[in-house]
């Protein structure tokens, strides 16, 4: 379902604060949040490159009561954002390695052109997040962005820093509109990165910000709902050829006759099959990636 999501709630040890943020998210009408762990892998020798995913915030009955009355559920996910600068760091991000594979969502923040191109072209990630609060360290180019869109990767724009400070706001608006010229409002997710509960904004308000960033009305609303859902679907089928191929089949079939042709899985991944592709482009690209994997 296209529920409202905020896929960037920074995880911190300050549980009290984190609790407040999650509670505020529920109050504002979000039905799904992702606790985000931001790491720079492999900085020190011998140290685990990636921490294990955070535990969900425990919510009191009182917080959940209004949701229960409306028959809604609240979902807490975990997300890993890796800041990558070198090839070595890139390799640490193999999605099949624990604990990377225990996260629900995988994101990267490339610091240079080379890593950006790698992320767009062949890294197995769900979200590419750029630090938009400063001048981007490289120029955006159409080709890698087009490739990333074709692979179903989403670009993230965060809004909380823009609320915090007017200089950051200037950079974010400038970088966001810059990104928008390339991706035409498609494949964007808007999330908060809020450090305090008061910095969170309601999903409709965020959608309206999307319009200021250059999306149209429908795209802007998708950026806090449908596109987030698509990120999750992408995450579930990531690295598994089975999932990707089943998407193709079902889309071409007439409704009513549902049969999934299973192709012997290349990897031993036994994730559940998802029946909806969400926004995945119906072109041939997912299929080609899949075939490559089978070989």
């Amino acid at each position, binding site marked *: 379902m296209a529920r409202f999501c905020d896929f960037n709630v920074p995880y911190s040890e300050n549980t009290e604060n984190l609790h407040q943020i999650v509670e505020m998210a529920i109050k*504002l009408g979000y039905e799904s949040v992702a606790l985000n762990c931001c790491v720079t892998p492999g900085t020190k020798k011998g140290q685990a490159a990636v921490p294990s995913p955070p535990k969900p915030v425990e919510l009191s009955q009182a917080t959940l009561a209004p949701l229960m*009355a409306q028959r809604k559920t609240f979902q807490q996910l975990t997300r890993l954002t890796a800041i990558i600068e070198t090839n070595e760091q890139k390799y640490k991000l193999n999605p099949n390695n624990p604990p990377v594979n225990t996260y629900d969502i995988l994101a990267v923040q490339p610091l240079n052109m080379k890593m950006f191109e790698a992320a767009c072209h062949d890294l197995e990630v769900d979200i590419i997040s750029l630090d938009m609060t400063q001048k981007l360290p490289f120029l955006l180019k159409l080709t890698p962005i087009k490739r990333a869109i074709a692979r179903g990767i989403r670009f993230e724009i965060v809004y909380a820093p823009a*609320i915090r400070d007017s200089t950051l706001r200037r950079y974010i608006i400038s970088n966001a509109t810059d990104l928008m010229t390339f991706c035409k409002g498609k494949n964007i997710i808007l999330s908060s990165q809020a450090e*305090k509960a*008061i910095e969170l904004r309601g999903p409709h*308000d965020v959608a*309206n910000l999307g319009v*200021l960033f250059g999306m149209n009305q429908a795209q802007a609303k998708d950026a806090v709902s449908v596109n987030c859902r698509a990120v999750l679907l992408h995450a579930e089928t990531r690295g598994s050829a089975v999932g990707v191929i089943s998407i193709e089949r079902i889309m071409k079939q007439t409704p009513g006759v549902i049969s999934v042709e299973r192709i012997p899985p290349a990897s031993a991944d036994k994730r559940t099959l998802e029946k909806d592709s969400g926004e995945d482009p119906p072109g041939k690209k997912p299929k080609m990636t899949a075939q490559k994997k089978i070989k």
Partner: protein
Amino acid sequence: MKRIVSKGDAPYYYLKVLLEFEDKTMAVDVLTFRTVIMKAMMSMYGEVGAAVQIDILKYEDKTISAILRVAGSNMVKLWGALTMLSYYDEKPCAFRVHQVSPFLMAFAASSRQLLLHTE
């Protein structure tokens, strides 16, 4: 029989908003409230933004909530400015936009608030 159909951009948009402070004891009168909005517009769009006519049709100082009216063409800008506001007088705060509509009449009812609890 005569029929007038107006499609597309409405002349006015209405916003039902609430200003929330981290410090719940803050008291704000209507003039200050207007100034908060003006400053929010100013910091986003400069003098041109500050000059946009915004009408406070109704104000409740107990809850710091209001019904605003703005020209349709400025609605997205005003909403954006309200969203971006984070401080007033060094105090952290946030605008919560409850309802947005091109029809003032629509604020008289809100079926999403119809909660029927059986407990």
